[in-house]
């Protein structure tokens, strides 16, 4: 079963792997084991473009390439997650926020102190 999400993932994986511009026809042929129609490949590429993961040039036929590597996307996300931008932080709930070195030291002491406590 090819769900749209899975297709998007495999098309993007492929674009990352070839690291150069590819036409939709080439993509269909290279993903032949999935048995995709050309229109499906176009749909998936359009969706990926809307999400900002793929760009195309103006040659004929159009050639598509990935925008940014996987590592760059992950790094961007982590930058936002670890960053201090309050507005962005509201979008997700992080397990532990950023703390300073001083506080880390004190937290370790707290944990160690509780371990030594004979009452526990």
């Amino acid at each position, binding site marked *: 079963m090819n769900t749209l999400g899975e297709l998007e993932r495999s098309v*993007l994986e492929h674009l990352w792997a070839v690291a150069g511009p590819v036409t939709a026809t080439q993509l269909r042929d290279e993903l032949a084991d999935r048995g995709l129609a050309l229109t499906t490949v176009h749909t998936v590429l359009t969706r990926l473009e809307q999400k900002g993961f793929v760009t195309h040039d103006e040659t004929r036929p159009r050639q598509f390439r990935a925008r940014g590597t996987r590592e760059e996307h992950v790094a961007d996300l982590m930058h936002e997650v*670890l960053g201090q931008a309050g507005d962005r932080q509201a979008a*997700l*709930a992080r*397990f532990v926020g950023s*703390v300073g070195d001083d506080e880390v030291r004190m937290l*370790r002491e*707290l944990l160690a102190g509780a371990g030594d406590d004979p009452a526990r």
Partner: protein
Amino acid sequence: MLPATALALGLLAALLAWPVPAALSRARWPQRDPLAALVCWQAVGLAGGLSIIGALLTHGLAPWGHSLPEAWWHWVTHWSTGAPPEEPVRGDHWVAQTLAAVLALELLGVLALSLVRTARTRRRHRALLELVVEPAAAGEDTRLLDHPAPVAFCIPGARPLLVLSSGMVAELDGAQVDAVVAHERAHLTEHHHLLLLPFVAWRAALPVLPAADRAHDAVRDLVEMRADDVALGSLTGPDRRRTLAAAIVAVAAGAGGQLPDGALAVTGGAVAVRVRRLLAPAAPLPSGARWAALLSAVALLLVPTVLLVLPALV
């Protein structure tokens, strides 16, 4: 009747703009019962907005009638019928009307704006994660992100995602990872993002009001404590409290060093409070005190509502 209502509402608004949030954020009992404290904060926020807008509105409409619905109707119809107000309208009445409208629009507008903005950010994050990362073994809604820093977070919404970094799985033992996952799941199942959202919005809408800042920080810390409590309830194991506390410290240490030294008081930011109450839990709030807190929250909401509609009934 309306001038008295306006005065009473104004008094309540002043209390809720400064002394009440200050006292609530300094109090020690919220740590012992984060859920009751969260209910109180929601009531403070809602009643604060209601009373300040209500005070301005009732003062602004005072010349038009003896109760809010009557005065409102009079005010609306006088534009078409040209019926004069019952008493002369002074400049301060116009100012109060305008302020009420501006404030109401600003609060609701900023709330809607931050709703849209966080929804858009979440959608972007989710799209990225679904494309870049394969679902983890722990479940369809869990993603394992390849990154050395120990980080865990969840993206709330209709299709929530729970994200762990590979650094987290490497540095924590199995029981600790379970504790982290239970904590994040608690945020999702109790929809903590909805409790925090109005305070995020109102802090942005009212940057001059220190209470807005204080309320936001208190609510943010309380949902973390609440999630810790819920996580403890779903964990098994000999020393759940210590496991969760150790997980918090390990994650804080692994991701640490991003803030300059002294950015937080050494006596402890919110993370230290969490660790302390896990390691040395205070007795839970007695049920009498808990009910008193919940009833005060209800009363806080009822007072401005009754003040606004009462003159229409008597």
